[in-house]
């Protein structure tokens, strides 16, 4: 019986290492069924089951097994094992949105690592703590309608703590010469600065991330850095630079054959060219985005594409196309039950219909057009809530003064 449990667990390990977590889970669960009296073996099985479920995004199961592992590690007095289980439990609780408990667990991971003088463990615990505070801050921020740099105190405090933990982590991993860990910390530190509205610091961190990604030939990380740099440059008001970074994102997304990311890059480019008031290019990229959204059956993405296209055609004075896309936006918003999108589309349509009506009756199309452009680009739309779509770009208003304040 004992050998059988071990054999099953070893096969589970092999499968997980080969990237087949689903099959690995079956073997680990079979091993648990068979059972063992060796509690260290059982602890390793629980831990790996927890991680496999984590990677499979089955967080309730991950939580269950990491909790079993923690209990077991404490029972047998395995301090290092307890630290590891606490860290994993903390990461899982974070994903589940239970930030307070996640902080307690990650702090335990940190305390034990320091007690054992385990520098690697300490650095990893600091990174995890940074991630928990980042998620906590982002979670509260996204519940409201705050823009980066314009945050309530609790959000700012959480994000500042995240930045401090990433900095502490960076000090240790730099001493240890762990470049991969430095890359991760720079990436998340950059995103934390971005949310805090420190866009120059965000750029500096993402530039470091980019450098390390190139060192490792890690093209996914390189693509992430380009995209994050693009986002930061948008807020610095440097749209040309942002467009260059988004183009590199697009190039890599195509090389990596990631259609969803390709769509996101096209959408970002469409929006950037809108900011640059180059509506032809904006339309070109938004159409590319639309095609992929349809291909991936991403209705929310398709709706946003139609909305953006409606705006761009309105700006060009092509009211027929503008109405076509506004109608399609309305249709899709109804289909997906997006009340806010529906309202937006109705407003756009009524604006457009009024313009066309006025144009025909008063023959004063110049005035009518400028009226539409003013209304549709100056924020008559309600904000759309954060969604898990391949494209999460949001339209927002920002005065040039505000841009300066943020720098």
């Amino acid at each position: 019986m004992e050998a059988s449990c071990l054999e099953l667990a070893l096969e589970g390990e092999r499968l997980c290492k080969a990237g087949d977590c689903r099959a690995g889970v079956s073997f680990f669960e079979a091993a648990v069924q068979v059972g063992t009296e060796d509690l260290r073996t059982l602890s390793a099985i629980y831990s790996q089951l927890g991680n496999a479920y984590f990677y499979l995004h089955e967080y309730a199961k991950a939580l269950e097994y990491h909790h079993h592992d923690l209990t077991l590690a404490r029972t047998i007095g395995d301090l290092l094992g307890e630290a590891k289980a606490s860290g994993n439990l903390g990461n899982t609780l974070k994903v589940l949105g239970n930030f307070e408990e996640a902080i307690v667990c990650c702090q335990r991971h940190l305390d034990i690592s320091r007690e054992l003088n385990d520098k690697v463990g300490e650095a990893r615990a600091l990174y995890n703590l940074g991630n928990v505070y980042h998620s906590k801050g982002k979670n509260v921020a996204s519940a409201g309608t705050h823009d980066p740099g314009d945050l309530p105190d609790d959000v700012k405090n959480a994000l500042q703590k995240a930045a401090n933990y990433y900095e502490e982590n960076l000090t240790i991993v730099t001493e240890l010469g762990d470049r991969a860990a430095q890359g991760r910390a720079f990436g998340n530190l950059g995103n934390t600065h971005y949310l805090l509205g420190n866009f120059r610091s965000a750029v500096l961190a993402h530039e470091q991330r980019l450098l390390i990604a190139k060192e490792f030939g890690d093209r996914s990380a390189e693509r992430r850095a380009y995209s994050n740099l693009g986002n930061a440059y948008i807020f610095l008001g440097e749209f040309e630079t942002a467009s260059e970074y988004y183009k590199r994102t697009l190039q890599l997304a195509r090389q990596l054959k990631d259609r969803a990311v390709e769509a996101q890059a096209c959408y970002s480019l469409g929006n950037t060219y809108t900011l640059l008031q180059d509506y032809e290019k904006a339309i070109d990229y938004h159409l590319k985005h639309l095609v992929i959204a349809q291909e991936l059956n991403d209705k929310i993405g398709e709706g946003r594409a139609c909305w953006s296209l409606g705006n761009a055609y309105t700006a060009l004075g092509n009211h027929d196309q503008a109405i076509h896309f506004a109608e399609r936006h309305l249709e899709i918003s109804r289909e997906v039950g997006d009340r806010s999108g529906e309202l937006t589309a109705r407003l756009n349509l009524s604006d457009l219909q009024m313009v066309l009506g006025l144009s025909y009756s008063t023959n004063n199309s110049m005035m009518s057009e400028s009226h539409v452009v003013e209304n549709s680009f100056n924020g008559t739309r309600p904000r759309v809530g954060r969604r898990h779509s391949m494209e999460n770009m949001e339209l927002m208003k920002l005065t040039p003064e505000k841009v300066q304040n943020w720098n």
Partner: protein
Amino acid sequence: SQPLAGHQTAELQSKVVPSKQILHSDNMEMEPETMETKSVTDYFSKLHMGSLVYSCTSKRKNK
């Protein structure tokens, strides 16, 4: 009622502030989590090494 309130605010602002359109992305690209790992293989290789060391030392002692 939330979207409506948001809409009213946006509309009011648009009349007061000569705004410039800008876009921002909530789609930040985060780095992956790092999970701590335990392994049955590591544990058993250590155990095996331990028993080897033990048998060697006990053999030496016996001699």
